[in-house]
């Protein structure tokens, strides 16, 4: 399907001062499109995601190189560990900006200014620079200095107020999806800026508030309130646009499938596919309005059919009959699903210390002339210090001196021995299993994923 022709952003350097989730998602897309993304970390304050979801839940004495969370969203980037608080570190940074097209950062506002690296300063160095600041609430306004984590920003955008079981409280999604969403938005904003720069030679500053980026998702709810002074209710899995619509229990342990019928014709196909043509003559179900009214009864009837069948069987049987349906997949099933596999949603990278691992696409678009995929492993701490410094003309002696003076580094400065941190990061999975926080922990997962050959190099 895809050929890997030359990539559109080849030759574009992106200076990446982001950490955690939203920013690294944005720059991972730019890297997959061919940009030379150089990320910067501090030895005193690592990207906190280097502590998250450690391979095999076992940090050993170098947990910062075993994080899955960090690995999947930083694949294909280069990295320097540079002390920006030191004058020489800052000078090196500015030299790299001079050769860059884009700077992306995700600090709380004022941090870049405090480093003397605000947009105006960067513009002095590189007049057509495109600088993008990703933050929780934007660069100005009364909440600009609010600390912001992804789990707070989905609610802050209004989405959680309409998420929840019917008549239940608001609830977050099972992951912080406005983080990657604003990363996608950031990538598009930067590509828009690059397009304009190509035509006019002008750079610009992009202020991206994650809260604002996600508010358009509730755009119709904003208008509903203005038009009818009514707040959208929490509908569980139902929809005002379809009936039946829901999540139905299937055969097996905690297996489910979703089904949605937008109109009478689709409901007719559902009735036939499930062997219940009598539903069509039942006054409770014969019109969309009636189905909304008798939704609980209809759900019960549908569950009698689904609960006898595997969730994938429900999906395929109904889809082949022309009814919208999907299996509700867990994290393992996504990796093994035939459609995701056929379209290469996961790229296999060869990660130092961890071996071959699948990482998901961040730009899901499939194109024919190039392939926006993870181009290599995620960088080790400071892996490209010397390579990058040589590219800007530094000698081996200078590089050795910078290392001795702590301007660059390839190990973290930890307040306690790494083994203690690794022990603290180990999650009590046996207790999580008991509690039902985990469904299973499978020792042979590499074999099941077909990535076992190369073993787990420590």
């Amino acid at each position, binding site marked *: 399907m895809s050929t890997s022709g030359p990539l559109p952003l080849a030759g574009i350097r992106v200076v990446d001062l982001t950490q955690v989730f939203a920013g690294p998602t944005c720059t991972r897309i730019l890297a997959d499109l061919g940009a030379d993304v150089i990320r910067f970390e501090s030895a005193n304050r690592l990207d906190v995601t280097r502590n998250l979801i450690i391979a095999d839940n076992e940090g050993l004495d170098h947990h910062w190189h075993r994080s899955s969370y960090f690995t999947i969203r930083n694949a294909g980037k280069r990295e320097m560990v540079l002390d920006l608080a030191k004058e020489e570190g800052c000078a090196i940074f500015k030299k790299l900006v001079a050769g860059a097209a884009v700077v992306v950062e995700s600090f709380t506002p004022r941090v870049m200014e405090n480093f003397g690296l605000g947009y105006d300063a960067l513009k002095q160095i590189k007049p057509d620079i495109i600088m993008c600041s990703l933050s929780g609430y934007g660069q100005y306004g009364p909440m600009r200095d609010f600390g912001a984590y992804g789990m707070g920003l989905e609610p802050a955008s209004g989405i959680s107020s309409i998420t929840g079981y019917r008549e239940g409280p608001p609830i977050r999604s099972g992951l912080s999806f406005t983080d990657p969403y604003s990363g996608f938005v950031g990538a598009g904003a930067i590509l828009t800026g690059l397009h304009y720069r190509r035509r006019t030679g002008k750079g610009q500053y992009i202020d991206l508030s994650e809260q604002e980026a996600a508010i358009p998702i509730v755009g119709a709810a904003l208008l509903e309130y203005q038009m009818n002074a009514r707040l959208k209710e929490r509908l569980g899995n139902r929809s005002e646009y379809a009936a039946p619509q829901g999540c139905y229990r299937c055969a097996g342990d905690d297996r489910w499938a979703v089904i949605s019928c937008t109109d009478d014709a689709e409901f007719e196909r559902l009735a036939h596919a499930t062997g219940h043509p009598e539903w069509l003559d039942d006054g409770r179900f014969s019109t969309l309005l009636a189905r909304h009214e008798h939704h609980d009864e209809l759900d019960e009837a549908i569950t009698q059919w689904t609960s006898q069948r595997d969730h994938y069987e429900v999906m395929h049987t109904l889809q082949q009959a022309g009814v919208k349906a999907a299996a509700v*997949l867990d994290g393992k099933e996504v990796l093994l699903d035939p459609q995701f596999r056929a379209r290469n949603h996961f790229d296999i990278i060869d990660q130092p210390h961890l071996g071959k691992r699948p990482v998901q696409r961040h730009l899901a678009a499939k194109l024919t002339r190039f392939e926006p995929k993870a181009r290599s492993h995620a960088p080790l701490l400071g892996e490209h210090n010397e390579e990058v410094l040589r590219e800007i003309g530094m000698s081996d002696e200078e590089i050795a001196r910078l290392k001795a003076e702590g301007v660059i580094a390839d190990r973290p400065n930890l307040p306690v021995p790494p083994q203690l941190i690794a022990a603290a990061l180990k999650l009590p999975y046996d207790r999580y299993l008991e509690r039902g926080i985990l469904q299973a922990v499978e020792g042979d*997962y590499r074999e099941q994923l077909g990535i076992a050959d190369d073993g787990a190099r420590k």
Partner: protein
Amino acid sequence: MPDRALSDIRVIDVSQGIAGPYATKLLADCGAQVTKVEPPAGDYTRRLGPFPGDIPDPEKSGLYLHLNTSKRSVTLDVAVTSGQVVLKQLLAKADVFVCSEKTSTLAEWRLHYEDLRDSFPDLIVAQVSPFGATGPYAGYDGNSLTAIAMSSIMYNTGEPDREPLTTGGEPGEYIAGVQLWVGILAALENRAVHGAGDHVDVSMAEAVAASDEYNAAMYAFQGAIRRRYYSRHIFGYPNDIVPCAHGHIVMIPGAAGFPSPLAPDTVSPMALLMEDPDLDKTPLFQQMGERMINWREFDDLVRPYLSTHTAGEIVMTAQALRMPFAFVPSAADLLSDEHLAERGFFQRLETAKAGALTFAGPPFRMSETPLQPAPAPERGEANAPVLVEELGYEKGDLTVFSDRGVI
């Protein structure tokens, strides 16, 4: 007047619904000329509402008005041959063609990428579909719900003893729309550098799966399969929406909220918030694993404070203590929010038939080329300018097209 970033780009958009139109809205708000080609009955979102007074009117649908700012509308039945002829005349002058049909339908209309690439070698054909243009599920139908279900997000959202829960507001559609938009911009960039059109094929299910935080990663790196547990993060409690006096807040103590062994003599921000330094001595404050397992006891500890303080009191105090607590606003709360107002986020637009309404503003700010949404078009309002002035048809032809139901 400030410059527009994409003023050199022309888009022909036959997509309907949310994902495709949101992608082209983002292009249009940045200055691209987007010609929305609607079926004679109009984009189906014109029938979905919300409507003022709940009275259906294709010119007053809130969803349509929200998704189609800055575009012009022509009506054209692209399912019939004469409609396809007109469409191809439009494509000859376009940079991007956007559609939201499955491959089988596009092939029937001879409007699939394969049918177009020889005649229009520089055209970018962007297609968003529920499961993608290829693969074993290419013919399957879907919506936001099916995409969220396939992505593993849904399996991990909700309560452990109830059914998995989707996320409100059709986010699968918006995520796919944003991915389509990024794909189109990448293809435009590639055309500028390497000179050729392309097919941009976005699967709604993959777009949402691209947003996965760690469900697949936990299996790929640990063999662990996560399960929904009140939508909680695997690595800590609390990071969740909790009740307070008259509402809800998001309680996020953050990296430094609880007692730290590195700072044994200080009172933790959480204990300061609750005004009870003794809380720092409890295992529930000292150990994350303990909170995760015995969360009900933790809830009992913090409930007296939460239930006697309002969202504003709690969030402002927590933020002053450097904890990233957050609000849980409704649509009404957002519209009256002081922070968003001071940022000038919302945009008041005078619509043709539904009066002046306040719309969600641009999802990002550009200093040189600010996004400038204009009201959504009435159905077919640009038929005459486009067909007569741009394509050279006679005014009489319009009547013939109209009589035959082509426009």
